[in-house]
């Protein structure tokens, strides 16, 4: 393969020049693997010398060669040792032959003139112009793009310089043309930055994190679709795939890593270094870590989703099949979908749940940003709670110095601190263990209740308040009963005293029989009074019990006020803020304040559609089937519906289950009540 194929070269190059270009390009291809240098050089030189594209992306080039970067590097090491170029199929896969004459022109211009030409091109492109002064069809290039292109040209220049140096070794017999003589390190002008070339920095926030709520909602919506529509269809397959895609992206891998997955890279029972067995994905292509592959633990639910997805497409038993199934898989040149395909899928999946005023396209890298942020927050909480336990951990998992360590393990970033090595995190075992751990922490936020926004627990507040009100009413009635019994006893006492007084005054004139009669009457009166006393005592004991219950009930109300519950991700932020403040709507009525009631008409208005007054009257009858608007009492009558003085139905706001209402309805009811109370004032 290392012998050059002479056929098919552009005619305008002399054989010597052709050989030199091949040597130069072989060096570029063999030494600069990845990083899209070849397409960038093609693009830049093409623009500078008016050679029209399109230029192949590296994925397509590799596909055309039929090999991977490692194999190309191995071939280059063999060829360069003998001073030979790579095979033409390989170099021309990355640098199409139509660009070769332009590349030779670059070499023959020499370093100074070539740099000037390239910089002039970049300068024009930074201002949105071509070298001829026409407007570029795609607009100006940003400073970042210009910097990247300029760096790629730097690599080309350095390759030319290195080639000339190598030609000094007579044993290689490179026989370079005289044009290479000018390419020395001294002669190469210093690279100018993009800003010096006049390019503008663009606002870069296209990878800013997607909001946690959107990721959660996306997963919930996809999951909802799948659960509702179990029937096999094209769409169901798409949802299954996208659910897995967003689920994996939420754990923070780069899209390049995700695209490179095969079916065999999913292991439902991977054994981690700490002995834990669980589902994991094998990330084989990590940016900046050639040759390193890592197992990343995933949550069991995501594993289940992956299994469902593979089973649906019947690829579970094809270990070498690509992980991602796409519509055009059959007609595609490449073995696997490109990052662009999955990026489009991820953008579309989130786009379905985006609010209309949010026009951003959430690319996969936005999910990575989110993973870092969520992971930091989750790890902070976890480490605060479990630091002590980790020190005595039997599995030797090491001790993360700070939450950032978990984020770096999750995102495969470098751990810079020497202390991480001594805390046994910065080795492949530690990364695997803590990567799995971080993934599970993040998943709790992405899928579980931890990541949901919270509002006060309206149902609980309402229930505890109702219970307390009931107890207070019981207490009041118990006190009233005691007062009544006391009055009764006082009456009986006074009557008995008066009778005794009468008897004492007439004692001399009374006969024996009458005296005994008066004696027994007095005794019976005393017994009655004692019985009433006993009743009062019993009531008093009950009152003590009630007071105790009231203390407990009041504490329950306080606790209910402090408790917050997760709210549905479908609600917008404004609605959640509103609900947070809505606690005032169900504040307890003060003593003497008018009851917060609205008429049926006002209630129907507040509902804002869907129900007529007549329908509501029908629904408010005892025994009608009611699910949504009212709680039902033991006798099946709707709670909170009372008959007013003139026979009109009134709705008592304090007894409505407003946590089941639409936020806009709650707001309307609130304003109705305010309007009513103003009128009554």
């Amino acid at each position, binding site marked *: 393969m290392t012998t050059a194929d002479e056929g098919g070269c552009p005619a305008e190059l002399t054989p010597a020049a052709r050989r030199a270009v091949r040597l130069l390009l072989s060096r570029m291809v063999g030494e600069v693997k990845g990083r899209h240098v070849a397409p960038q050089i093609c693009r830049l030189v093409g623009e500078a010398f008016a050679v029209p594209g399109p230029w192949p992306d590296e994925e397509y080039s590799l596909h055309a060669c039929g090999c991977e970067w490692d194999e190309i590097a191995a071939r280059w090491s063999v060829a360069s040792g003998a001073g030979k170029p790579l095979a033409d199929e390989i170099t021309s896969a990355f640098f199409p032959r139509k660009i070769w004459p332009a590349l030779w022109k670059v070499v023959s211009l020499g370093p100074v003139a070539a740099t000037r030409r390239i910089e002039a091109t970049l300068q024009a492109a930074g201002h949105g112009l071509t070298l001829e002064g026409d407007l570029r069809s795609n607009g100006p290039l940003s400073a970042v793009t210009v910097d990247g292109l300029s760096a790629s040209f730097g690599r080309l220049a350095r390759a030319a310089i290195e080639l000339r140096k190598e030609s000094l070794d007579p044993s290689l017999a490179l026989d370079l043309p005289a044009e290479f003589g000018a390419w020395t390190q001294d002669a190469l002008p210093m690279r100018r930055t993009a800003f010096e070339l006049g390019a503008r920095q663009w606002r870069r926030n296209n990878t800013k994190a997607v909001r946690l709520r959107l990721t959660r909602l996306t997963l919930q919506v996809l999951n909802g679709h799948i659960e509702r529509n179990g029937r096999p269809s094209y769409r169901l397959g798409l949802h299954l795939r996208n659910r897995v895609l967003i689920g994996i992206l939420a754990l923070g891998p780069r899209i390049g890593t995700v695209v490179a997955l095969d079916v065999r890279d999913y292991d439902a029972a991977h054994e981690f270094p700490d002995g834990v067995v669980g589902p994991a994905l094998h990330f084989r292509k990590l940016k900046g870590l050639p040759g390193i592959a890592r197992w990343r633990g995933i949550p069991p639910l995501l594993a289940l989703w992956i299994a469902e997805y593979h089973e649906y497409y019947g690829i579970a038993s094809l270990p070498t099949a690509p992980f991602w199934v796409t519509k055009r898989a059959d007609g595609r040149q490449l073995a696997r979908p490109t990052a662009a395909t999955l990026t489009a899928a991820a953008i579309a999946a989130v786009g379905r749940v985006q609010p209309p005023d949010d026009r951003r396209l959430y690319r996969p890298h936005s999910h990575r940003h989110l993973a870092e942020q969520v992971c930091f927050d989750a790890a902070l909480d976890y480490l605060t709670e479990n630091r002590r336990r980790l020190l005595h951990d039997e599995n030797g998992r090491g001790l993360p110095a700070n939450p950032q360590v978990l984020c770096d393990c999750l995102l495969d970033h470098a751990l810079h601190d020497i202390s991480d090595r001594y805390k046994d995190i910065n080795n492949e075992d530690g990364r695997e263990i803590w990567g799995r751990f971080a993934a599970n922490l993040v998943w709790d936020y992405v899928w579980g209740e931890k990541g949901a926004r919270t509002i006060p627990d309206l149902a609980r507040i309402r229930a505890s308040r109702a219970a307390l009100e009931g107890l207070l009413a019981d207490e009041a009635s118990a006190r009233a009963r005691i007062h009544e019994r006391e009055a009764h006893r006082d009456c009986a006492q006074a009557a008995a005293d008066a009778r005794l007084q009468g008897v004492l005054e007439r004692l001399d004139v009374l006969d024996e029989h009458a005296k005994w009669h008066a004696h027994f009457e007095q005794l019976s009166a005393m017994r009655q009074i004692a019985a009433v006393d006993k009743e009062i005592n019993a009531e008093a004991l009950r009152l003590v019990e009630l007071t105790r219950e009231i203390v407990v009930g009041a504490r329950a109300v306080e606790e209910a006020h402090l408790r917050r519950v997760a709210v549905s991700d479908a609600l917008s932020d404004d609605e959640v803020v509103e609900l947070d403040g809505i606690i005032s709507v169900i504040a307890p009525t003060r003593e003497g304040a008018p009851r917060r009631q609205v008429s049926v008409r006002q209630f129907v*208005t507040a509902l*804002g559609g869907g129900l007529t007054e007549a329908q509501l009257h029908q629904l408010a009858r005892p025994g009608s089937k009611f699910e949504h608007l009212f709680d039902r009492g033991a006798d099946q009558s709707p709670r909170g519906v009372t008959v007013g003085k003139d026979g009109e139905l009134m709705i008592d706001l304090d007894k409505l289950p407003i946590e*089941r209402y639409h936020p806009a309805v709650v707001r309307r009811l609130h304003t109705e009540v305010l*309007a009513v109370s103003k009128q009554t004032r």
Partner: protein
Amino acid sequence: MVNTTVQSGQDEARPRRRRSPRKASQERLFCTLREASVFLELSFDALKQRVKRGTLVGVARAIDGSLWRPDGGAHVLVEADALRRQLSDERQQLLDAWRTGRVSLTAVKRQIKAEVDDNG
């Protein structure tokens, strides 16, 4: 410009029913699927399918995330504001007129039918 005055219809003998605009607080927040189908010019069944598939924008949900159906199950409601965002300018005017009680749904239907007929 949309004609928002109410016509009495074919039957001249029937007394002309006058509508007074509702108070701002009485403006409709929600419409039923059947009402929404008039403005969206889609069949009721098509909208029901969309609700089932979860692709209808603006379906009203209660605080706990469930579908907001005040009558306990029969009606699915659509938020009028969300519906409004999906309509053309002319339809938005019609919707507003209907929400504030200035025109009846029948008048809206008639208006839309006339427009469709005019456009062939």
